[in-house]
């Protein structure tokens, strides 16, 4: 009987909304975030790298693994901490407003301003957590790569990678994207100052649009999707013929990977043709000049492109190194490889994120609320902690 009398719903709400719990949970979130920085994380490192790290530290791994600290931001521990934070914020707001809040607002003056700010800050935090939850649960994000002229048909295997939140069913509804052209502006031949892709886009839910531009920092919104440019590179057109029969075995644009080291870019990849006698490594130099008989890349605009074809054993042993300008060819055993042209490729991130609008509103509400809450202090009034 005594126990029942001493427990009340408001008492429980006060407990959940206590300031000490708030400070403790902030500490827990900070500690988990620190773990997310200090420990290798899935999605940021390759699994083989994480496995090697874990093998070198078995005791620490045994401690961290059960808590999900190697994927901490998607772990139950972290999500639980955020859930407790949300409950704490909601509870402390209810308690404060029930105790004194509404009276303070009605009374007016700087206290009313502070209290309104307090209410708005905590509402924005709840909105932020809600928007983040929507993003985590329902967001779909896919990376695709297109060479100029190529079209994408929204099949699962056409994406380089695709991920969706656990609450979202992966849907392919025949969203079509064709890349017309990629324009990259360089200054001083190597500083990339603008990247724009012209695309034609269509899906079942919105009218098709042709000639739309996607620019770095200026995503294209189409229906529920947004398209951002991720990276660009070069796709040399390669025609591989059998020299004995003169038959064309391969006629394709091969997208070479773009590597960025410091401020420099390089464009390489392996030629994935099993019938060639040795491993062939391709490099495109968009603009080159010869120095002491060796070609050197001097720019990233394709003013004077060169294809470098290198045969190796896959390691350090190089068997041959040949060069081809557009229209010329090299010989690899019984095969001829013709460098028939050069196009650009662009990779795009296609995102549907139902949580972003909520988060956007929450963030700016939070900023306005902070100003409201702390404006009296910034104007020189006594801090709230010394007023009551």
């Amino acid at each position, binding site marked *: 009987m005594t126990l029942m009398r001493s427990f009340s719903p408001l008492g429980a709400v006060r407990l959940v909304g206590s300031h000490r719990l708030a400070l403790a949970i902030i500490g827990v979130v900070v500690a988990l975030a620190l773990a997310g*920085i*200090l420990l290798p994380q899935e999605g940021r490192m390759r699994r083989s790298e994480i496995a090697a790290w874990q093998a070198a530290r078995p005791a620490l791994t045994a401690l961290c693994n059960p808590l999900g600290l190697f994927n901490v931001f998607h772990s139950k521990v972290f999500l639980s901490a955020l859930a407790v934070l949300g409950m704490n914020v909601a509870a402390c707001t209810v308690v404060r407003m029930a105790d004194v809040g509404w009276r303070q607002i009605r009374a007016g003056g700087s206290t009313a301003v502070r209290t309104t700010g307090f209410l708005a800050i905590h509402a924005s935090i709840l909105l932020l957590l809600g928007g983040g939850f929507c993003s985590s649960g329902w967001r779909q*994000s896919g990376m695709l790569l297109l060479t100029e002229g190529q079209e994408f048909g929204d099949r699962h295997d056409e994406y380089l990678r695709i991920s969706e939140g656990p609450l979202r069913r992966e849907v392919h509804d025949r969203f079509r994207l064709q890349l017309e052209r990629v324009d990259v502006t360089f200054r001083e031949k190597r500083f990339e*100052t603008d990247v724009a892709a012209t695309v034609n886009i269509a899906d079942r839910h919105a009218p098709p649009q042709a000639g739309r531009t996607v620019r770095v*920092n200026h995503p294209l919104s189409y229906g529920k999707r947004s398209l951002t440019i991720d990276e660009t590179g070069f796709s040399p057109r390669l025609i591989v013929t059998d020299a004995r029969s003169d038959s064309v075995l391969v006629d394709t644009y091969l997208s070479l990977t773009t590597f960025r080291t410091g401020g420099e870019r390089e464009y390489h990849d392996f030629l994935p043709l099993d019938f060639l006698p040795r491993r062939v490594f391709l490099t495109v130099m968009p603009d080159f000049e010869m120095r002491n008989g060796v070609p050197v890349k001097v720019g990233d605009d394709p003013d004077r492109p060169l294809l470098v074809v290198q045969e190796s054993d896959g390691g350090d042993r190089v068997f041959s190194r040949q060069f081809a300008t557009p229209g010329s060819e090299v010989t690899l055993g019984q095969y001829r490889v013709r460098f028939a042209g050069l196009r650009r490729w662009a990779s795009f991130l296609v995102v549907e994120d139902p949580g972003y609008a909520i988060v956007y509103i929450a*963030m700016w509400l939070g900023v306005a609320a902070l100003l409201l809450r702390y404006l009296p202090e910034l104007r020189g009034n006594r801090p709230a*902690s010394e007023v009551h």
Partner: protein
Amino acid sequence: MAKIEAVFFWLSVFPYACAFFLILLSLVLNRPKLTSAGIVSLWVGLAFHSATVGVRWISAGHAPVTDTYELNLIGTWFTIAIFAGFERWRSLPPAVGLTLIPVAFLVMGHGYVVWSAATPLGAAYQSPWLAVHVLFAWFAFGSYACATGAAVLLLLREHFRDWGALRRIPESAALDLANYRFVVLGFVNHAVMNVSGAVWAKNLWGQYWGWDPLETWSLIAFLTYAFCLHARTFLKWKMQVSAWLTVAALGVLAISFWGVGLFGPTVHPGP
């Protein structure tokens, strides 16, 4: 470094050094007029510092916000400008400069050591959110630095009560209030920095938050300052406790500017 830029750079360092020593001597020798001279020297240094920023801006063709040297240069400009402005118009104790100016030296010196030639603004930086994000980042850092300056003075005053020179700086209560107000100012600016960064990230990378190490550490710094404010309001942690929290929080913030790269690659091209 371009000659004229180097000239202005060193012309700003010298008056800052003079300002530091004049304010210090003023306290030690109890000569208030030396403080005034120190503040004048500080403003002279700030003028040359502004010229350095201007020269770099012109030579780069854009605001100096892309590499470590530029960020350190403009960051220290904001720190000194905020201190000088509040000293002039809001009666901030000049003695706070004794802690701020050496920090500015270190940061400017680090920038000088890692100096690199100006480069055109990359495509990723061609966004109006760059100006918002960086501006509020440096307002936040400058405010937090001023808060830490007041906090350090408070701690020195409390721990070395017998030092005559320290008795001439304002009362601990005034320093505590200055600490709090600058933390509040920094916190609001920090919030705008985070929000503008998230909007910029959504436009640039397709996602507003990716738990990138620099983003995460910025959040940690933000939550650390939130902890400071909450602890003061609800646990009544003031004076020395609050001062120690502010000093620790600046350490956390400093890592988010200069140390996060040590923990692994980040997509954010920070300092």
